[in-house]
């Protein structure tokens, strides 16, 4: 008997339209860390993030991902944390949206204030992406990582490509 074969929600490839680029990617292991009340644990030598904070240590990131919850991305959590831990590696589809028009594209889909003054590079937010709940990481002024429920990956990709097409059409004028 051979082992089960893994498959991604959507093909891991890049779509370039105008001045925006969309890449479906696999972030590696993703664990949800939800500390029990009153606890502020240190996770893999990183302080638990405050709302919107992303703590980085090498290739591993600890990303604020909701009320009393963070996603540890790129590593399994250390043993013995006073927190509920679930493996979320398979629960989300991840996209990287970057380029000069990445912000304009995202502004078609989320009511989040995307100005750098309100949503700084190196921070995260929970917000809707059209009708989907998303985790949004701003990795640079013109680069975002977006996570949506895995089953919605095709809808997310379709809507992002649609927004990219519209924004690119404006650029072309």
């Amino acid at each position: 008997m051979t082992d089960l074969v893994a498959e991604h929600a959507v093909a891991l490839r890049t779509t370039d339209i105008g001045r925006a680029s969309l890449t479906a990617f696999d972030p590696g292991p993703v664990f949800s860390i939800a500390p029990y009340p009153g606890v502020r644990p240190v996770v893999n030598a990183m302080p638990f993030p405050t709302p919107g904070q992303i703590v980085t240590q090498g290739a591993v990131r600890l990303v604020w991902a909701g009320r009393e919850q963070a996603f540890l991305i790129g590593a399994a959590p250390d043993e013995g944390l006073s927190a509920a831990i679930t493996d979320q590696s398979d629960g989300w589809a991840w996209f990287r949206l970057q380029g000069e028009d990445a912000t304009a594209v995202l502004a078609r889909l989320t009511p989040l204030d995307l100005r750098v003054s309100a949503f700084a590079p190196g921070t995260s937010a929970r917000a809707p992406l059209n009708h989907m709940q998303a985790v949004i990481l701003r990795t640079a002024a013109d680069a975002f990582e977006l996570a949506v429920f895995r089953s919605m990956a095709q809808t997310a990709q379709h809507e992002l490509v649609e927004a990219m097409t519209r924004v690119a059409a404006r650029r072309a004028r």
Partner: protein
Amino acid sequence: MRLPCPCCGSRDRREFTYYGAAEFLNRPAPDAGDAAWDDYLHNRDNPAGETRDLWYHDPCATWMEVTRNTVTHEVLKARALAGGVK
């Protein structure tokens, strides 16, 4: 309309789910009797002015109590129902 999420800050109303008056937090004891439970479940004031109600910020899963004015539409404050790590 915008609401201040204690976790995420000011956000568009479309991100929130409304849940009714904040009286819903005052859950009677199991043996409080029919009158108390009836009051808790069904009877609500409908004030012209300051009111407190419950909202859920769907993106971050925070439940909060919002104080606002139904006449001026002013949102006065919001507090998370549960404290702890935010």
